[in-house]
């Protein structure tokens, strides 16, 4: 009863059939955490105002996701079912705190612009979701691939948003001017409302592409 691997045998059996590389690929596109699962909306909308912020946030989340997946997976037979959520949160919070210090050490400016959202990685449902739904039931190798794929998919999605928002809202990409000086910035794009608009349009494109693929 305390061993979660013995439950959900149906789910596990279906997973065993799929090749290992699929654990990695699925996060990039088919089960993309932002565009398909619509998880982790808080950082997605809040810190995708520039491409740099989006990339940094994506990489920080990837790191936390990877490490927590590894730890949760290796401890999956040790953690009793009743306290699993508390344990996962503890593990995730640890890696988030570590990331917080590391980003400060890398660049004070970057830490300033990401602000409170680094600490908020703790409550990113993507990470807890992967720990609970995948890492706690799968081997170390698979969990690693899953975390890596999901993390890169998340980073990719954030970058898509950040690039559009920075380009229209500031006329630059990674701080490089893309338009002449007289470019009229779309201020709404840098504001939170712009995040919602951009996300909606990307979701629209993603769903249209998915539908087109399904019909053909």
């Amino acid at each position, binding site marked *: 009863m305390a061993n979660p691997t013995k439950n959900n045998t149906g789910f596990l059996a279906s997973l065993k059939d799929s090749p290992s590389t699929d654990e990695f690929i699925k996060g990039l596109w088919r089960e993309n955490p932002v565009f398909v699962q619509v998880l982790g909306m808080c950082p997605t909308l809040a810190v995708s105002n520039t491409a740099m912020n989006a990339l940094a946030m994506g990489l920080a989340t990837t790191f936390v996701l990877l490490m927590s997946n590894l730890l949760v997976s290796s401890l999956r037979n040790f953690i009793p079912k009743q306290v699993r959520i508390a344990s996962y949160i503890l593990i995730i919070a640890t890696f988030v705190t570590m990331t917080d210090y590391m980003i400060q050490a890398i660049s004070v400016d970057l830490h300033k612009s990401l602000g409170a959202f680094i600490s908020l990685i703790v409550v990113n449902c993507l990470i807890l979701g992967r720990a609970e739904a995948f890492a706690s039931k799968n081997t170390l190798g698979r969990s690693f691939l899953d975390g890596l794929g999901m993390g890169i998919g998340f980073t990719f999605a954030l970058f898509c948003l950040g690039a559009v928002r920075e380009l229209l809202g500031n006329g630059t990409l990674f701080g490089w001017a893309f*338009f*002449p000086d*007289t*470019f*009229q910035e*779309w*201020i*709404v*794009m840098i*504001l939170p*409302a712009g995040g919602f*608009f951009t996300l909606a349009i990307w979701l629209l494109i993603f769903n249209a592409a998915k539908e087109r693929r399904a019909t053909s």
Partner: protein
Amino acid sequence: MLNKTLNISTSPHIVKGIGTDDIMQNVVWALLPTAIFAVYSFGLSALMVLIATTAACVLTEHYLCKFSGKESTISDWSAVITGLLLGLTLPPNFPVWMAFIGGVIAIALGKFIFGGLGYNVFNPALVGRAVLQAAFPVAITTWYPAFLDNRFSSFSVSTFTAPFMEPTVDAITGATPLSAFKFDHVVTPAYDLALGLITGSTGETCAVLILLGGIYLIARNMMNWRIPVAILVTVYVLSGILHWVDGQAYPPPLFMLFSGGLMLGALFMATDMVASPITPLGVVIYGFIIGLLVVVIRIWGGLPEGVMYAILLANAISPHIDNLIRPRVYGTTKSVKGS
């Protein structure tokens, strides 16, 4: 609408041939005096803004219909109204490329995404304006004085700004009566406001002409008169009370009534048939909420004008208003379960 099968019904057998297209067409006629006055007072620049928004709305509607494999719905005139209304809420010296983008957004995000005419949650023209206000806050609050001598021979400097480029600020700018009150505490006489001898958005200056258009539609039973009446009475009474309490700090009620976009908003935007409630009482509550929000935003808010946000917010709650006052089904005690 048309049903080709034979209908058998009791008398009376007179069928009033009033369809969506008829109403829409009449709204366009009702808006024309205001639009003509806008061109008369602000000149060619205002004409360009109106053309740009109308063209953008019609083209967007046409191509979105085609793209999604439906028949084009531009013949029902609703896109023209959206375009005209949007153009009338913009400053006359607004860059044409921004006005065009506003039109595209109004139709695409305000109407088409929800399923087209009859399904829009918000008034599409106001959605377009709200996005423009958030995206280009400086351009949309740069005003141009009315009745310039060369208004029919030359354009404002900012009208033909290259697409995606920042408009050059006109050497000659004016202040709207509302911003003059908000920032400098100057009250414009109600007489000037009513006749439109002021600076403002292209179509919000002449309150009398807007009223005429509204009365025409109400007389033809094509507009719910309760909405504008509820809004205007609320604004008049609330601002009257405030003015009576402290005449120095709060503007006179007639100034509130005739300034800014209140007339245009109350008569032509809040009355959007799809985005307003349907029950008579619901409509009055809806009008009261808009009036209340207008007064609150204008007097205590950071912005000088609040009609746009007031109507958008009321649009959002209008289905809930209808739900709230839904009459109890006869014989039941509380609200019907499972409905």
